[in-house]
């Protein structure tokens, strides 16, 4: 066990997989010699060689297209899209190709690729470095979408993603790369030091895709969250004094419906939290699932807490970001109903 930040845990996952499997390659913009703009691939080229971890041209569609071709050959490429906001040029390759190869070729060709991308706000990145595009991928049949919230989960989930025979969109909440940010931007920055989920095994371990985690047990209301919002929801529940059961979904597709259903049937109330814009966000899907499966157990309308339906505004970061106050208000509403 070693104390790791999420960045270090992701680096360790790729290091472990490069060491175990010669078919694993890691590449992307600034990923090789420099080690990535967020340092997630630091040292990997030096340790494993330039053909295992290398830089690419600035061409996201090319990066993903090349990865698909490598996957068809039999390799397991892990590519980094520098910011999730830059993933759109690769959307055709992801949606029409990676997600469809197995189906359209009846299993003849597959794309066992992992696409890592830092996502989300809270770093004053403006609208092109802050977006949460997960719903664009959860809507696509054939893709798995995974979002960790802690160093321990990040490593175990990334190894599972690399070992998966399906294409996996692996979105990394960049605001919690270096500490469990709880939305209180006005307070001193928290680091991962001392956090129980920052104790990370050095070797190989996996966290299965499709399994949620109950990060706080409670009886009054179920909170469904993922990524940075897990930590914000935890803070909100503590500050509001609400006995919330907080579920970190970890995998969005396929979602752990059993965990969601069991919790909502127990609490009878549900608040869904994400940073992405509200309309047609993944929260809409979650809300529909809960309504379809738990309607007769619900004591109150489901509440959604989300980013506003605007581009991510640079100067108004904290007016946009769904912080603890917005979540606490939703908890209060759902309990008073």
């Amino acid at each position, binding site marked *: 066990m070693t104390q790791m930040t999420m960045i270090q845990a992701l680096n360790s996952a790729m290091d472990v997989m490069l060491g175990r499997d010669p078919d694993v390659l890691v590449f992307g913009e600034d990923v090789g010699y420099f080690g990535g703009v967020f340092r997630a691939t630091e040292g990997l080229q030096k340790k494993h060689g330039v053909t295992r971890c290398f830089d690419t041209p600035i061409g996201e569609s090319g990066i993903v*297209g090349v990865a698909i*071709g*490598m*996957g068809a050959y039999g390799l397991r490429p892990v590519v980094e899209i520098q910011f999730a906001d830059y993933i759109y040029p690769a959307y055709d390759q992801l949606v029409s190709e990676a997600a469809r190869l197995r189906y359209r070729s009846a299993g003849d*060709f597959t794309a066992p690729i992992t696409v890592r991308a830092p996502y989300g706000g809270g770093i004053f990145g403006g609208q092109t470095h802050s977006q949460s595009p997960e719903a664009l991928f959860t809507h696509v049949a*054939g893709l798995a979408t995974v979002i960790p919230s802690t160093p321990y989960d990040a490593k175990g989930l990334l190894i599972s993603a690399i070992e998966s025979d*399906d294409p996996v969109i692996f979105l990394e909440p960049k605001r919690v790369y270096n500490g469990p940010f709880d939305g209180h931007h006005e307070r001193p920055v928290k680091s991962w030091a001392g956090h129980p989920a920052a104790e990370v095994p050095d070797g190989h371990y996996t966290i299965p895709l499709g399994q949620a985690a109950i990060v706080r047990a409670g009886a009054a209301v179920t909170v469904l969250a993922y990524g940075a919002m897990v930590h914000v929801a935890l803070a909100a529940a503590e500050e509001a004094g609400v006995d919330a059961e907080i579920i970190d979904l970890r995998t969005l597709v396929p979602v752990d419906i059993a965990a969601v259903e069991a919790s909502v049937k127990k609490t009878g109330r549900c608040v869904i939290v994400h940073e992405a814009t509200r309309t047609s966000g993944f929260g809409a899907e979650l809300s529909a699932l809960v309504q379809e499966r738990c309607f007769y157990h619900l004591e109150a309308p489901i509440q959604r807490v989300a980013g506003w339906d605007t581009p991510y505004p640079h100067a108004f970061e904290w007016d946009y970001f769904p912080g603890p106050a917005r979540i606490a208000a939703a908890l209060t509403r759902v309990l008073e109903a």
Partner: protein
Amino acid sequence: MSEQPRLSLYIPQPWRRPGDPPDFSNLRPPAAGEADRPPIDVDASDIRDLAYGLIRVLDNTAAASGAWNPKLDPEQLRIGLRTMMTTRALDDRMYRAQRQGKITFYAKSAGEEAIAAGQALALRPGDMGFPTYRQQGLLIARGYPLRRMIDQVYSDRRDPMRGRQLPCLYSSRAHDFFTVSGNLGTQYSQAVGWAMASAYRGDDKIAAAWIGDGATAESDFHEALTFASVYRAPVILNIVNNQWAISSFQGFAGGERTTFAARAIGYGLPALRVDGNDLLAVYAATAWAAERARANLGATVIELFTYRAESHSTSDDPTRYRPVDEAKAWPLGDPIVRLKGHLVALGEWSEEQHKALAAELDGEVRMAQREAEAEGSFAQAEPAVKAEAMFTDVYAEIPWHLAEQAKAMEGEAS
């Protein structure tokens, strides 16, 4: 200020439209045998003229000449001819089947058969092809059964694609034929990635990709050339310039100002521009590029200059956008007629043999079609069979939500 002309927007127009007589007088193809054949380790910057010329081996008298003459033995030429004729026989029957309402869609490769047939001869087993829907000749050349192709086109119960794909979008790993996409251009960077993987593994296999003139405008084309150049990927990047993208002439892909082969120059890649209706030239250029790739010298771009002799697909009528007889007027002729003429001139083929082969292939296609039609449509299969075919292979394992939906569909259908 007053003397400055006002700006005007230019919209390209083809030189002829329906009602006009066909006119290819602006095309002045160089004589066969003229082009130089450089060594494979040539610097791309030293052969820029080949991107603007036209490599031709067969002349109008069916004689072969020049440094690019591959001097194939007659048996190989007959194999190439057979592949082209099988492609055409299959295309003709399937086009008719669509007109009879038996299938939903079809795309022929009439006039372009020498490309897949000639290139297949120059590639080795194990070299992966990333084709478009007009390289069905690759499958035929590699021995994929006609019956399986027709099963796919009919979406019948033996369809290897299990009823999931539009007709003509074949796939067969066993025949080194990558699953064809309906989205244009995506296969180009995938082929580069496949080639990079082969190089990474120290393998001896190369990749070949095909794209149409129209789709060279897609960003994937340019990203693929960038990656191929940067990583010196062992890949052959073919541009099939058949001059028409559905109803849009090649001017809308930038073909008025330069050649498609010349796109390679900006990426530092060698480019060959080839008479695509000349199987010998197609073979020779591909063999050169393949040898170069296998020698670790990187990618080559080949423009195969041809003419789409018929419609884009069963869904359009070319007499609505180009002169009716334009295909007949195409100066570089028909690839089957040209190779046949060459073989006859060599004394290795005859009119009688040609007629007999055409009849034999037509019979083979009809037989395979009859068998496929007897198989029955997948769409009429039992609900459980359909549900299994529809819901598997979306993911490696069926997740809970798809299992629920499969059950729901099965319930609806029974």
